[in-house]
């Protein structure tokens, strides 16, 4: 790895301004992500309103315990990520590395549980397409529910994979001492990203798994 450049880039007055600029850039990026996921949420709302019975019935095929466990796993990973940022800002290299690795492992756990759920859906022929099998008379509308389920959890999962990749790079750099103050922006901004992906799941979980359980 090349030696890091000067901590303060030439276009900024001071480190505080540089930090504000990088945080603001990340927030604006996350705003575009809100709109990206917002489009899928809007589509889901429209079709759920159009076919409430079929969507409700299809959503009861999802594995609620696994979804709930995954929600808890992501909340734990958000805590460890927040603590990683906390230790990065204080220059605690070992703690920073440990919490980054812990966050990474929780992210991988989430993806593993998601993979188990996806496997079950394939085995139960609930994946949209030619092998889709559904008895309850509303197969076309139920298939539409699973299109949304796989598109939304799939996009969320892709964001998780990217986040896990970021964490792997950060953990190595943290261990080598490349993320000591004031060079903590990569940890802070990855933290913002990670929490955002957590928030997406906070909305996906009730909308896909929970409503129409009664």
């Amino acid at each position: 790895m090349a030696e890091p450049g000067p901590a303060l880039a030439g276009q900024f007055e001071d480190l505080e301004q540089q930090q504000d600029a990088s945080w603001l850039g990340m927030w604006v990026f996350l705003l575009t992500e809100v709109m990206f996921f917002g489009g899928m949420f809007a589509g889901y709302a429209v079709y759920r309103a159009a076919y409430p019975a079929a969507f409700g019935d299809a959503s009861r095929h999802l594995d609620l315990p696994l979804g709930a466990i995954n929600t808890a796993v992501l909340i734990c990973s958000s805590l460890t990520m927040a603590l990683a940022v906390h230790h990065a800002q204080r220059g605690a290299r070992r703690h920073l590395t440990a919490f980054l690795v812990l966050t990474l492992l929780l992210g991988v756990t989430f993806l593993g549980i998601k993979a188990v759920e996806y496997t079950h859906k394939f085995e139960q022929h609930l994946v949209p397409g030619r092998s889709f099998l559904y008895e309850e008379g509303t197969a076309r509308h139920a298939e539409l529910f699973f299109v949304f389920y796989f598109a939304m959890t799939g996009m969320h999962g892709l964001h998780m994979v990217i986040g896990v990749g970021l964490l792997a790079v950060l953990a190595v750099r943290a261990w080598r001492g490349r993320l000591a103050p004031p060079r903590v922006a990569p940890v802070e901004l990855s933290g913002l990203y990670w929490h955002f992906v957590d928030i997406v799941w906070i909305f996906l979980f009730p909308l896909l798994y929970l409503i129409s359980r009664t």
Partner: protein
Amino acid sequence: MMSPDVPHRRVYYLVFVTLLLLTLVTVELAFFDLGLLNVYVALAIAAGKASLVVLFFMHARYRGGLTWAVLGAAGVWLAILLLLTLSDFVTRDWLAPAAPAGLEDTP
């Protein structure tokens, strides 16, 4: 812009426990038949959890006006996307013209 302050670690643990409790509450409530309210309660709890994450884990509470401007922009644009779309789809058949006699079955 306000100089970035950071929350105490105790705040993180408190937010963490609250988030787990709210998850438990939302799962339990899903099995009570509240009629239409089920959706709104679930969404309200999700919004509360998201706010906690934004305010404390993402430090929005400790940062300045520009961060809030971006957050406000996200809220406004998302509201336009969702509310205008749904106000269309939800109200489409409110003003369906009465079919002329003898043509009731015409699509």
